[in-house]
């Protein structure tokens, strides 16, 4: 057995007689064991983490009667352009902006939160906190965010 590439570890760990296929199977089995152990440790499916059920497409958003729009992008982006009537709300200006929002909002009105688009997740987090604080379900986040609003097939 060549030691040149075996700087450390017990030799049995390298299972030198095992074929590549055997190693692949063993690797997959180890993965399965680790994931099962991890799953048992973490417990059941975290349903509350499934924020996606609160997403709304732009097409669906247009079907909502008179929704209240919330912009969770940075202030500079909001200053450059935003949806007419959208209230800028993020975790930094929460208390003040929530006051502005409550002046406009009534419980029959859906709220749709958008962030910049590709990959941003602040809209999900803001929508989740609004649902919690306002105690209503009809608060969604917009799939695709601002980039969809500006350039999407159903751009407003």
């Amino acid at each position: 057995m060549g030691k040149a590439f075996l700087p450390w570890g017990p030799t049995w760990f390298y299972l030198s007689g095992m074929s590549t296929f055997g190693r692949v199977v063993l690797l997959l089995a180890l993965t399965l064991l680790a994931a099962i152990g991890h799953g048992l440790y973490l417990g059941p499916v975290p349903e509350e983490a499934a924020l996606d059920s609160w997403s709304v497409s732009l097409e669906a958003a247009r079907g909502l009667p008179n929704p209240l729009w919330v912009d969770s992008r940075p202030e500079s982006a909001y200053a450059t352009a935003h949806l007419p009537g959208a209230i800028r709300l993020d975790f930094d200006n929460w208390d003040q902006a929530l006051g502005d929002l409550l002046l406009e909002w009534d419980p029959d009105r859906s709220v749709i939160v958008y962030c910049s688009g590709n990959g941003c997740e602040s809209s999900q987090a803001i929508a989740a906190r609004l649902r919690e604080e306002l105690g209503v379900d009809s608060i969604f986040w917009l799939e695709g965010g601002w980039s969809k609003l500006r350039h999407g097939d159903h751009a407003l």
Partner: protein
Amino acid sequence: MKRWIILLPPVLLGGFFVISGGLKLAAPEEFYRAVLRYRMMEGEAAWAVALLIPWLEVLAGGFLFLRAWRKASALVILALLFVFEAILASAFLRGLDIECGCLGSGGGTSVGMAFVRNLFLIAAGLTILRTDHTSDEAAP
């Protein structure tokens, strides 16, 4: 070929997967959400995938550092990358405007960027298979 050049692809690829799997393991619920965003599965199936993929990444990535395991690990990682490329292509064709979820919550990589990055990772994996001459019966 110089040994360090041969070692470069497994070290880079292994390092990438250990880090990307580790970030996911640190926040399993984040990755669960990322899996849901692809809208291909939900509930227990998505949760199972959210736990299996990071462990596969960490183990296969880590085993790439061991010469005797390099070929097997590279095969597993290539299979993972090819499947993921197909999923990314499907997300793109379905018009999903989502973050890939590749590096935990902080990645911010779009589907298109992830697709291109995966091509480089696949190239690294194929290079490992080409340059790794460890035969099945060879010592580590």
